[in-house]
């Protein structure tokens, strides 16, 4: 197979099948039909763990509603892409706290802390506040270097929520397109594009050009 055809074959997903010799080994034993379809290699122990986690519910409806509001404040829809809820971030957060139990208390407790603050200020829970009140509250905890000392627990909670939201968003399909990550596909690395080298006033030296891998164009 010529190289371009080879890359093309890879790109459409029948990954190099023609190149591979069938193994003489038996397949791994199949476990019973998983409730979730796995598109990545999973061991039986992993499948069992995943099913167990998915069967659990951690956050209650009120907590999930609060998370949905928070993540869209952190990453709203803009000209480039959709919001954190568009990217499924609340579901990701529900899964990840079950997967990493050390996150359970900081997130649950932080949500409660936020509600108590809002009750004191506005006599309403965070989700029941109007948009202006919510932002007023968030402004108190979103800027670590400006926040008042008595807001430190809120700052820690918001830092956690910011991190989880960013990870959840930018590892989603929407987020990766937004970011402009264009890898994860077969290609031929032939160095930094010329216009980028020019932008930074760089060039490959003669020796590097001579010894590095070259491709048919």
């Amino acid at each position, binding site marked *: 197979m010529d190289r371009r055809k080879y890359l093309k074959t890879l790109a459409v997903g029948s990954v190099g099948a023609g190149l591979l010799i069938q193994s003489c080994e038996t397949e791994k034993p199949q476990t019973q039909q998983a409730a979730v379809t796995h598109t990545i290699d999973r061991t039986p122990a992993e499948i069992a763990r995943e099913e167990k986690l998915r069967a659990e519910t951690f956050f209650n409806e009120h907590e999930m509603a609060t998370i949905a509001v928070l993540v869209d404040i952190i990453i709203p829809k803009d000209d480039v892409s959709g919001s954190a809820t568009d990217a499924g971030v609340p579901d990701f957060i529900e899964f990840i706290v079950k997967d990493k139990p050390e996150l359970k208390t900081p997130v649950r407790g932080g949500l409660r802390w936020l509600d108590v603050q809002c009750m004191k200020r506005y006599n309403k829970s965070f989700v029941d506040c109007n948009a202006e009140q919510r932002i007023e509250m968030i402004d108190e905890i979103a800027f670590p270097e400006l926040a008042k000392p008595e807001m430190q627990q809120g700052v820690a909670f918001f830092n956690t929520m910011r991190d989880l939201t960013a990870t959840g968003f930018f590892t989603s399909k929407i987020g990766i397109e937004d970011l402009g*990550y264009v890898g994860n596909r077969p290609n031929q690395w032939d160095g930094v594009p010329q216009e980028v080298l020019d932008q930074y006033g760089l060039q490959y030296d003669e020796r590097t050009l001579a010894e590095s891998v070259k491709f048919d164009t």
Partner: protein
Amino acid sequence: MSVFQIKETPKSYDVCIVGSGAGGGMAAYVLAQAGIKTVLLEAGPLYDPAKNVTQLKWPWESPRRGSSSPHRHFGDFDAAYGGWELEGEPYTHKDGTQFDWFRARMVGGRTNHWGRISLRFGPNDFKRKNIDGLGDNWPISYDDVAPYYDRVDQLIGVFGSKEGIFNEPDGIFLPPPKPRLHELFIKEGAKKLDIPVIPSRLSILTRPLPDNKDRGACFFCAQCNRGCTVYGDFSSSSVLVKPALQSGNVDVIPNAMVREVITDNSGNATGVSFVNKDDLQEYTVNARIVVLAASACESARILLNSKSSQHPNGLANESGVVGKYLHDSTGADMGGILPHLVGRKRYNEDGVGGMHVYTPWWLDNAKLDFPRGYHIEYWGGMGMPGYGFGSGIQYTNGKYPGRDGKMKPAGGYGASLKDDYRYFYGATFGMSGRGEAVAREDNYCEIDPNTVDKYGIPVLRFHYKWSDYEVKQAKHMKETFKQIIESAGGVVTWGHTDTAANQYGLAAPGRIIHEVGTTRMGDDPRRSVVNRYNQAHTCKNLFIVDGGPFVSQADKNPTWTILALSMRATEYMIDEMKKQNL
């Protein structure tokens, strides 16, 4: 019939190999080519990267977005099953010391996810005692191993460049990939400091391997640690074990957890006993020769657990040296940001699975306050987002002007924050030092007298402390990293606050996963476990071909040397069989 019985595997073999990583895979391959009936025991399941696929998958295909789980400590897409702790297979520590032991239970072992860094040991690396008076020399020299390095290069494939550096011997190289953008900045920065930055040497096929139709060439997805569906990189599972099985001369028994090597009245090995993890039954398999390649520590464990009247201290342990001189590479890291790379143009810079350039050890230890060197690995750029992406933006976005050129308070939320993630993407980079520790008798693993694993096999207990040599080396790494980052026009953002109190950020022993030395090689049977052909001094039909026989580690990754020595040992073994000496 008793419920508990030991079953004999009906077929008898010429050779039984324990472990299918670099050492065991190479032994199986060489024996298969020679037509010798071999059985390969592996403590984990079958694994073939063409079938067990995580390559070219997207982060959202993992519900935890690729982060680690108890079953894959290096992340959901990583090829290694297992990690620092395995359920039901504990290990313990002595005197409050630490050693973290990484185990990948699967065909191919840890070669499935390693960094593919394939460095030859140099002439000095076999004779360190001659240079600094510490530790011991190897009984063999670079010239003894060089022909095998050449053949490993040709059989498996490695890219690199001819540099002519005395202690970094050149190999038979495929062409290296061009440096990425941040690597160019690093190269420029290091040059000003007289620190060499040269093309890396990784076992990845940048070009098709001549005369090999079973493996495809690299297609530059940067995901070698996930295993390669076209076998464009080296893993023992795909490159050695698979062809060995196809030869018809090698049988593999997966999920076979070896208990001990069985010996006869004359003290020779006759086979091994193992528990099958699937049916939990006890088995034995007979062979004329036993080859241990279960990892330096696991092989030591098997030997120490193989006690008999002929070998009361454990098999091949008449010297008392088994388990001693355990050493791992040192490690320390630092990271920063290249402010001129913010808001950078997007393009695919995945490249190969790892760095395109690295720094080999460049200084003379005689002029320094620590005896052994280190190499530097670099990373950075526009990688695929995964779990942790964007974390800690509050430490970055308050320090630099945003896209609008204005400063703003750290942290934040909303459209402006969302744009910061885009803006700072691909501007971070960092480096890791990997250095040589001095092998010492009092760093060791032994059998814990009180603890067994879930199969009833006595477990290892570790005793390991870094010495002042390694701590001073880490200090030097940190000072150097800061200079390189700043010379490249970067700003250090983490890894710079370490002090003597935390050994300058020196990674805990075991963390670099280069465990070697537990069954060291030597000419003197009183001070070593195996001879210069990896053959046990006191049990002639027992060979050890993992990292255990290493006398010293070098500032290199051990895999290429494990492969070369395993090839050499196995050919010696075949020769001895032909001469009827075995």
